[in-house]
């Protein structure tokens, strides 16, 4: 878990990350990379109505926020998720989630009295 002071120093980085995630096409790419592991653009484009160029553009935005990275495998580029950045995004919901956990425990104590 990150301390508040660490996080407070990085609001811009976090906003970039959410911008990178805040697009249905990009979220679909994240889901595909999550489910299928590292893959090439050719495979990412398979079965999609989105063009290879559009997917490349999305991947570059996501790369810019550190959400995905790209490695060369022979002649093709293989894209994979950067799990650490994905965890940062989950962190926002996790915080609110923990607040609800604590609040619901209070509710339990009240009604199970």
């Amino acid at each position: 878990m990150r301390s508040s002071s660490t996080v407070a120093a990085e609001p811009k980085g976090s906003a970039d990350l959410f911008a990178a995630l805040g697009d249905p096409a990009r979220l679909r790419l994240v889901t595909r990379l999550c489910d299928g592991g590292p893959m090439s653009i050719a495979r990412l484009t398979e079965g999609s109505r989105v063009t290879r160029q559009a997917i490349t553009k999305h991947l570059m935005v996501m790369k810019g926020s550190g959400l995905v990275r790209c490695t060369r495998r022979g002649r093709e580029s293989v894209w994979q998720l950067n799990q650490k950045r994905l965890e940062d995004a989950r962190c926002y919901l996790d915080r609110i989630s923990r607040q609800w956990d604590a609040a619901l425990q209070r509710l339990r104590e009240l009604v199970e009295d």
Partner: protein
Amino acid sequence: MTTDRIEKKILLRASRQRVWRALSDSTEFGSWFGMKFDTAFTPGACMRGTIAPTTVDAEVAKTQKKYEGVPVEMTIEQMEPERLFSFRWHPGAVDPDLDYSVEPTTLVVFELEEVADGILLTLTESGFDRIPLARRAKVFSMNEGGWSAQMKLIERYVSHAQ
């Protein structure tokens, strides 16, 4: 993976009437959640509660001091007796210098379901994807000293009271 929605389920060993009262009575709701309301919950009502000060723990009180009396607004949506209670609000809206009223809200829904051992309460909060990106990022820096400290206080208060 979703960034839009939170879902929680909790089994409460209490009667349906008891759970409903804890949710639908604004004083009872405030007592476990940590807010103070002057009026009753009714569908469509715009509730203006405040974060309550604490006398439980001086150290936490210091952290909490900057949020003391900060209004928390919520609009009651549905109240289906003993079955469903929902409202909209601005999650983590505790910075008095910011105007949250123009921003999208999240929808919080409590649903009661009778099971063998009691009441299965399902909580969902959804709509986070509509919250401005900059604000979502800001929650990272805000919550740790704010709401979670608040929750800790409530926990201590309740356990002392019993």
